């Protein structure tokens, strides 16, 4: 259908859900989005979409959208003009800053919103309040990937693209249910299977993705390091390590070798029989080209960074980095989780991972932003900011996040937000978190703004405006820009997304060449892209690693158990994850009819034997308790999980995050979302 039709037009844009970054066409008729149609020219998804992608338009014109600023007066939200609302925000942020200084404020931005919003938001925090207390929700998703892959390879991002898995001879997919969580990356696994590529799935759950594998390996939850070390012991024992690659390109082999000596047989920890460990180790090591694909099963633990480094260890030991068909690829969770980090919405780096602690970097940014005294300290991370509410942190600005549902230990989050003197929430719906706000600012959804998302393969994809925001709602860069103007901050006069992007490019060498003109192509651009002539870099570390000495780093890492393990009082291990039908706290997906109908309420997977022992029937309500809270949910009785293990999805309010643990990975500050101890009881009694 013609793109210039008077009645109707297609607007090609990027899906607002997971980190695959599928292209789709929004169908616009009379100023409204009326549907989604395939965009078959996209090399990412070739027009194919998952259940969330095909319905991603349905929430755009929801009557529940926030359409006007709201100010809380006497416990009630009253509609306000932009002037009133922004004046109030400006006044309070200034008062807190004047009294408590840079560490008195916390800034949190979503990985769901465009790069341009993330960039201007962190600039606002740093320029306006001289604070590095700015973070995004990668912290509770792939923060350990950023930290771990940086240590192993020098760059905290996926080494190779999704489609490149089809160039491999073997795919080792570990802690990732791609078919559900990243369906169009899961498609590449399905294609690989048809092509005859070997697939080994390592997961405590027999997921949709595990079902695709030639070999499914069930292991005990959160024992990744023990299993990887055991595999590496046998690889070295058999002399299957890539000696030339190690000699030429890798540090730390002796350290690794010494550590894995203790893991010849670690079945007692990870639960995988020795012959299976050897089999998968040898197959991985012997494959000409083998790729590791992993996800939050690896990262959302107190050992997250070390788990990621263990994946790096496996790849470096066997020479599987730096060419087609190999690498270590985290499937980034949210549509822009890569980008939000790339933009410097992170407490220790500016855009392009330029460290704040380096004086030259600060000097450069001070010059570019015409400010002085940018902070050198490591700011408070996402959940650290929550912990500091009422103590160091008195005021908070949350853009597009719903911490009350999505952060660990919901009761703790609610209690902490209550302690704030002032909370601004900028969002598109009245989320559970909005109740704790003093001012709510109505922003624009993905279909109402221009910008870019950077997908899990470092591909920068264009987001294109199809319609105007509803009512008085505004594009988010304009909200920040107007607020900055009210506060007298300079350098925020950036009326278009392209202006913000160019502002970012000017200070970011790794993305300088990724101009909007070049991004018009359906292929987008994979960073690094340092010059305007540069085609982008789909595969990292070809000749040398991005580390200071150009070498990859092996690390000897010992297994550590999770912070809280099952015991007599709380005898079950709780794992968490995602459903294909919902996205995060469901503010968008639950407003799509098909998705709501598929899964309207929360359920927990429980093993058949456990259910029989406890007298629990499929689809009956059960109560789950942890040391931090409780939740009631439906039981789904299945053999997808092992006895003693319970799996629950993260999408429901007062759900699994009433139970989860806030304890952090010391290296990446990732809370242990995927492992805690719980008890189960029948709601109806016996």
């Amino acid at each position, binding site marked *: *259908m013609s793109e210039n039709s008077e*009645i*109707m037009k297609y607007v090609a844009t990027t899906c607002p859900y997971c980190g695959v970054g599928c292209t789709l066409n929004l*169908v616009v*008729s009379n100023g409204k989005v*009326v*549907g989604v*149609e*395939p965009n*078959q*020219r*996209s*090399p990412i*998804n*070739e*027009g*194919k*979409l*998952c*259940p969330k*992608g*095909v319905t991603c338009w349905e929430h755009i014109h929801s009557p529940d959208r926030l359409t006007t600023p709201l100010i809380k007066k006497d416990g009630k939200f009253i509609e306000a003009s932009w002037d009133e609302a922004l004046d109030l925000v400006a006044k309070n942020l200034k008062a807190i800053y004047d009294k408590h200084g840079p560490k008195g404020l916390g800034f949190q931005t979503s990985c769901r919103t465009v790069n341009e919003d993330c960039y201007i938001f962190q600039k606002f925090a740093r320029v306006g309040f001289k604070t590095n207390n700015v973070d995004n929700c990668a912290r509770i998703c792939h923060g350990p990937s950023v930290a771990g892959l940086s240590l192993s390879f020098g760059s905290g991002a996926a080494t190779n693209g999704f489609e490149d898995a089809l160039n491999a001879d073997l795919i080792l997919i570990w802690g990732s249910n791609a*078919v*559900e969580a990243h*369906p*169009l990356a*899961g*498609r590449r696994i*399905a*294609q690989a299977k*048809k092509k005859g590529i070997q697939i080994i799935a390592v997961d405590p759950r027999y997921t*949709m993705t595990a*079902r*695709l594998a030639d070999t499914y390996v069930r292991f005990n939850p959160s024992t990744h390091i023990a299993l990887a070390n055991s595999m590496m012991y046998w690889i070295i024992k058999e002399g299957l390590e890539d000696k030339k690659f190690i000699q030429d390109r890798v540090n730390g082999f002796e350290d690794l070798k010494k550590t894995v000596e203790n893991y010849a047989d670690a079945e007692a920890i990870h639960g995988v029989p020795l012959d299976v460990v050897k089999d998968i180790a040898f197959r991985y090591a012997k494959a000409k080209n083998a790729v590791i694909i992993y996800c939050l099963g690896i990262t959302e633990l107190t050992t997250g960074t070390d788990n990621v480094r263990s994946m790096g260890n496996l790849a470096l030991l066997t020479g599987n980095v730096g060419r087609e068909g190999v690498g270590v690829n985290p499937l980034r969770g949210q549509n822009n989780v890569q980008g939000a980090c790339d933009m410097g919405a992170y407490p220790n780096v500016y855009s392009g991972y330029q460290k704040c602690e380096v004086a030259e970097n600060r000097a450069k940014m001070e010059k570019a932003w015409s400010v002085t005294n940018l902070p050198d300290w490591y700011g408070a991370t996402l959940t650290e900011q929550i912990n500091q509410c009422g103590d160091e942190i008195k005021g908070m600005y949350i853009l597009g996040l719903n911490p009350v549902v999505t952060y660990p230990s919901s009761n703790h989050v609610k209690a902490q937000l209550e302690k704030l003197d002032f909370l601004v929430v900028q969002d598109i719906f009245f989320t559970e978190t909005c109740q704790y706000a003093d001012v709510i600012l109505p922003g624009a959804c993905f279909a109402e703004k221009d910008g870019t998302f950077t997908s899990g393969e470092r591909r920068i994809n264009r987001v294109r405006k199809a319609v105007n925001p509803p009512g008085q709602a505004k594009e988010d860069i304009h909200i920040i820009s107007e607020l900055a103007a009210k506060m007298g901050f300079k350098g925020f006069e950036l009326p278009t997304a392209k202006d913000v992007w160019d502002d970012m490019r000017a200070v970011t060498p790794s993305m300088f060449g990724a101009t909007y003109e070049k991004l018009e192509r359906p292929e987008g651009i994979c960073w690094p892209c340092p010059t305007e002539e540069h085609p982008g870099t789909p595969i990292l570390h070809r000749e040398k690693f991005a580390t200071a000495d150009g070498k990859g780093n092996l690390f000897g890492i010992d297994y550590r158990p999770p912070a809280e393990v099952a015991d007599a009082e709380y005898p079950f291990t709780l794992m968490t994850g995602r459903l*294909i*039908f919902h996205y995060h706290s469901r503010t968008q997906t639950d407003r799509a*009819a*098909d998705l709501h*109908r*598929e*899964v309207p309420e929360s*359920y927990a997977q429980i093993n058949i034997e456990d259910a029989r022992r406890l007298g629990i029937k499929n689809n009956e309500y059960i109560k789950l308790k942890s040391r931090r809270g409780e939740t009631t949910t439906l039981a789904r009785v299945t053999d997808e999980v092992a006895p003693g293990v319970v799996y629950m999805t993260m999408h429901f309010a007062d759900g699994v995050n009433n139970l989860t643990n806030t304890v952090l990975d010391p290296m990446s500050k990732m809370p242990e979302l995927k492992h805690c101890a719980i008890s189960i009881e029948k709601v109806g009694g016996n």
Partner: protein
Amino acid sequence: MSTFIQKYLDGAKNMKVGVVVKGCDLMSMIELGKRNEINMNNVLTIGVNCGGSVNPIQARKMIKEKFGVDPDKVTKEEIDKGQFIIEYEGGHKGIKIDELEEEGYGRRSNCRRCKYKIPRQADLACGNWGVIGDKAGKATFIEICSDKGADIVSKAVSAKKLDTCAAEPKGIEIRGKTEGAMLKLGEKWRKKEFTALRDNLWDFIKKETSRYIKCYSCIEKCPVCISTPFVERPESYMVRPGYIPSDPMFHLRRFASISDSCVNCGQCEELCPVEIPLALISHAIRVEGDNAYVPKLGAAPYKN
């Protein structure tokens, strides 16, 4: 195309639409017309001969890998005389379709099996097959297939928007031969692909559909599969919401519902995120059904 008119243009019930169609588009529209989803009285269809289409990303891959040409440099592509031909800055190149398709490149798999190459149930059936001599590349064949078609051509001629002349007998002969060759090729692919399904059909369907993730594109984009409203739909005893892979009846009831109407447009398969060869299965069911049984509601106006 057909579901676009159904969904976004209210089935052309309140507007007139002129649309250029391939065989599969037209069959889809005819089926939607039969189901009162499109008002075909309001639609003027201009058919074009079609030897099959190529997915754009697969085409780019083929051009790069098989032709050794940068796809961005290609200015024209066509299928002619059994070859896939590209023109690009600095030259042109053709490779036999058979050779490409044996290696997994080439046309969409439903197109390979297609036997509706010149859509003569359209108001006009046009296209380049049979346009020969000095007119090659400059004119189109027009077969006038309806009064509506005759009317638009005569109006276009009187408005001096169109020059016409009688088709040359040689051109008619070549058009027929081209069509015949394509039909033969379609039959060859049917034999090959359907025979391959014969021995292990149940296992094949079970294995392939086990990846299903309920994106519903195979229903939403299917021109012959119209869902009943969910409101007041009786609870299914066999298909539970929220479960993936879906219960087997999810697929069985869909195959059964479209069994006598699948037009092999291929949209279900084209849009499937988990690579289920849905069109192959439902097309095989329809072809076998059409051959073996008297049509329940009369024969379709097209012959595929």
